[in-house]
């Protein structure tokens, strides 16, 4: 559905993105991860057609974004980090305007459908200026959805929302994937990526440092967190003696972080029991992977 080839963008001498290449299949949910200033927003804006690339190609549904921008824009819904809202309009007026300039066939029907879908019914008649941050974010999402796009690009859709609102946005995005909508979203919230995305693309300083399925990335290098009642020097030795353990890193409060080449939970538990095993759990690794990849590259 989306194919990006050797995409680069420079702002003067500064390179925002440098030779990006990736593909996204139809109906896939892909997460863009990266520290601030990595080039996520730049990439998304190029795909949405609001920014021209310096070199390289980007195709959406087989159509080149630079050669036929209007065809692509009709297929893409884009929610920038700050939702583009005309605050002096009511929600319904705003969505009607968005539907019309996006060339929707039956704007009024599409607007009512989107209002229902995004759950804006109770505030549809209110001025956007008077809405809470959570509702504004939803209006922004509704704007991106109103013309039934085949591709949805969401730049930090859940930033600044409370956990309940985040859940709402996640449920919406999940529901979209069922309708074969391709979704690219960027986020800082790692659990969100794990909960939502099929695949992750980690960008750092304008380059892709990793792209793989969430499970593959999270599982690379099995990690265990062990907590014992009586921390001592021998604990680390005992854990190190377990076959398959690569590294043991003592932490505070009797916590030890164990990296292993395979699943060693049972053996580690047995080794830790003499020291008063309190807790043992597999650590979700995405955060570690993220920090390691973005740290290594710099």
């Amino acid at each position, binding site marked *: 559905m989306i194919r990006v080839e050797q995409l680069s963008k420079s*702002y003067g001498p500064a390179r925002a993105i440098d030779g990006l290449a990736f593909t996204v299949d139809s109906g896939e949910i892909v997460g863009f991860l990266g520290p601030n200033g990595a080039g996520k927003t730049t990439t998304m*804006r190029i795909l*949405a*057609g*609001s*920014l*021209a690339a310096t070199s390289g190609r980007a195709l959406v549904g087989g159509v080149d974004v630079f050669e036929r*921008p*209007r*065809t692509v*824009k*009709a297929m*893409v819904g*884009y929610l*920038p980090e*700050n*939702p*583009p*809202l*005309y*605050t*002096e*309009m009511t929600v319904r*007026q705003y969505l009607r*305007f*968005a539907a*019309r*300039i*996006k*060339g929707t066939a039956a704007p009024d029907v599409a607007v009512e459908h989107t209002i229902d879908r995004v759950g804006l019914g109770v505030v549809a008649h209110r001025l956007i200026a008077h809405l809470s941050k959570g509702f504004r974010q939803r209006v922004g999402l509704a*704007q991106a959805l109103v013309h039934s796009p085949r591709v949805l690009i969401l730049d930090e859709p859940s930033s600044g929302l409370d956990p309940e609102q985040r859940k709402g946005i996640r449920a919406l995005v999940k529901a979209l994937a069922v309708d074969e909508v391709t979704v690219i979203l960027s986020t800082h919230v790692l659990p969100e990526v794990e909960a939502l995305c099929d695949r992750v693309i980690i960008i750092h300083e304008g380059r892709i440092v990793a792209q793989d399925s969430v499970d593959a990335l999270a599982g690379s290098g099995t990690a265990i967190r062990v907590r014992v009642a009586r921390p001592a020097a021998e604990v680390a030795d005992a854990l190190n003696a377990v076959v398959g353990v690569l590294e043991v890193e003592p932490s505070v409060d009797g916590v030890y972080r164990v990296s292993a080449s395979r699943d060693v939970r049972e053996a580690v538990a047995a080794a830790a029991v003499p020291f008063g095993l309190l807790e043992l759990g597999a650590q979700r690794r995405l955060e570690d992977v993220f920090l390691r990849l973005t740290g290594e590259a710099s």
Partner: protein
Amino acid sequence: MSVFHIAARELRAVFTTATGWLVLCGWLLITGLFWVVMVQNYAMQSRDLVFNPYAAASLGFTDFLIAPFFGNCAVVLLMLTPAVTMRLFSEEFKQGTMELLLTSPISTLQIVLGKYLGALGFVLVLLALTLHFPLGLARWGRPDWGVVASGYLGLALLSSAVLALGLWFSSLTSNQLVALVLTFTTALGLLVLGWSSQDPADWIAQISIMSHLNDLFIGVVRLSDVVYCVAFTAFFLFATHQRMESFRWS
């Protein structure tokens, strides 16, 4: 169609902001004051000439009331239109709403024309709200409708030119105040240029907007004057278009 939707949104936005209503009230107040004062002066002059039928015959509505009124309206328009144009692009940049327009399947030309027509629509509403002044004269005499028509044409052409200029300045900055000041000083500069030379054929006077409008206000429609205003508008609409195109490449 998209041009129309953008223009309609602009027009609605003007009427939902305080600026729009302030401009409207200011316009009605100042033009109303002008009219009342001018009618009073005219009445006084005609009374003084009661016993001088030759002089009284030359003291027509059209030359002594309508034409100067248009000249005064032009100056007021020059001051008020920058307040209409300042927000057109600057506010979109500031609020980040430009992103909606840029990622919608519409061309840059449609965006620029939509904004321009929306603002022009508002100014035409302002002009229409002064129609009752010359129309009211019909009760007491026979104003020259040709002069009234060409005067309104002149005001419309002037607003069109200043709106295009203001649209361009607005596309250069996200600060509305900067756009306002730049538009106002440039428009005023173009007005003052006309005073610098007594000879209307002088090139400096030809640059000024006002020297092209004075004849329209007394009922002389010259193609060169109309072309000046239309070309002025077209040039700044083109400049705005180029500016918005370059925005994608920044």
